[in-house]
């Protein structure tokens, strides 16, 4: 480097911008600002009401503390029901999602079946469990049965999609090998497809049990059984201390379930 280069030593380095093109960069900033203005303007955001909320928040939290764990039997019944809903729904849901996973895998079924399978999974995935729960509560009445049906749909949406993707990624050599021995469709599934995807299926099932447990705690809010109903009632009756107790137990159970499912999944791989 020659000493004659001008301004050496005073040259400052500037971080290169994330988007090189300045028009695109400032255009993007302007677009974000415009969207923000549009969104906040079109929603009915009332700051006066937000300000009113602060004393109400103080009132709610002062009534919620300390949490009231005294109504233990009500709480135990609710949580046991939630856990049972999650278990039944996971077992049935996982079996069905294996079925739908096969139907939605491009490499093992004809194209028409594949499209149908994909459509079922897409619909099951797109609706939030609470919406599904409302529909089932209206169709089959209040209670845990509606919750079980809801979580079965939820499981099909998640596990089914990932199973279909896992099946599409299998080694086709094994399928050809089983076919070469004269194996039919079911033999191909049993000896070439399943052995390749079942380890993943077991991991997904345990993950889904955890997800279902979380969801089963809230489907009760719309009447589909479990602790959610108890929580909703305590909220409606302004029993905030009992509601807080339910929430604390819920967080603890979810943490345990997450740790448990994480440990099993790690030991599987």
């Amino acid at each position: 480097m020659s000493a004659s280069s001008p301004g050496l030593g005073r040259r400052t380095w500037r971080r290169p911008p994330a988007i090189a093109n300045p028009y695109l960069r400032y255009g993007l900033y302007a677009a974000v600002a415009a969207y923000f203005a549009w969104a906040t303007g079109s929603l009915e955001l009332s700051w006066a009401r937000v300000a009113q909320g602060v004393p109400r928040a103080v009132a709610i939290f002062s009534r919620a503390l300390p949490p009231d764990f005294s109504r233990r039997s009500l709480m135990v019944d609710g949580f046991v029901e939630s856990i049972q809903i999650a278990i039944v729904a996971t077992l049935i849901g996982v079996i069905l999602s294996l079925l739908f996973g096969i139907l939605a895998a491009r490499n093992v079924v004809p194209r028409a079946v594949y499209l149908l399978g994909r459509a079922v999974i897409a619909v099951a995935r797109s609706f939030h469990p609470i919406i599904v729960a409302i529909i089932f509560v209206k169709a089959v009445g209040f209670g845990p049965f509606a919750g079980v049906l809801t979580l079965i749909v939820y499981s099909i949406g998640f596990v089914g999609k990932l199973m279909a993707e896992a099946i599409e990624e299998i080694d086709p050599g094994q399928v050809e090998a089983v076919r070469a021995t004269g194996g039919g469709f079911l033999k191909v599934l049993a000896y070439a497809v399943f052995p390749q995807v079942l380890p993943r299926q077991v991991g997904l099932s345990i993950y889904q049990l955890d997800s279902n447990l979380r969801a089963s705690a809230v489907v009760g809010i719309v009447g589909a059984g479990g602790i959610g109903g108890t929580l909703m009632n305590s909220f409606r009756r302004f029993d905030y201390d009992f509601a807080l107790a339910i929430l604390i137990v819920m967080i603890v159970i979810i943490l345990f379930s997450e740790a448990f499912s994480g440990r099993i999944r790690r030991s599987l791989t």
Partner: protein
Amino acid sequence: MNSYKWQRYTFAERLVRYLIYLATVAVLVWSVSDLDIFWPWVWDAPVQIGDLFARMSPLNLSGLRQIGAALIETVHIATLATLLALVLALPTAYIAAQNTTPNRLLLWLGRLIVVSTRSVNTIIWALLFVAIFGPGVVAGILAIAFRSIGFIGKLMAEAIEEIDKRQIEAIEATGAGKGKVVLYGIVPQVLPAFFAVTILRWDINIRESTVLGLVGAGGIGLILQSSIDLFDWQTVATILIAILGVVILGELVSAALRRRVL
């Protein structure tokens, strides 16, 4: 020819498998028998569900304008809540990551925030915020944002923990202060994760914001609930299809964004 028959599993393996099957069936039997299920309703369910779907056709398209407006409101709630969550989640991630947290107390505070916001479902947050701020979109935005803090905070904290330490040391060696280290040492390394997590959460938030209205926190759920209460199944079907469309659109947009920025 010997009489050896090929089997996939040894005897011991099969024994373990059957024991696992047995335990699973036992848990299933316990759950089903203990659940408060009214069996006549179960046997009647296919008929009832079929009946419900029959009542949903033909679609009632008269409320389409109202549904469209509610859907836009739903997307706004999801987007604004995601932005708000980012503002709240990034400092949380900073103190919840083991290598950037200022001290142990803040580390545990960060972890507490992450765990408690993530484990409480959006709809429960919505119940709380409706009780505080009254029904409306403010409660909805806060509910979605709070649930997202834990999600974004956890994933970003993990991203921060996985960064390359040498880059930090290099910047510290130039004499840069704490702010410069964050800006030039940490931010560039976690930026891809930041975009990925934000897009993923936005996609999830669109789905979540469709149910806020059921507890009065704004969005499409409000008119869904009122149509269900009126047994107006034809409008319900229209709303459900509209929700399906928006959710799938959101998924396509986020997939496109992900390809763009990553």
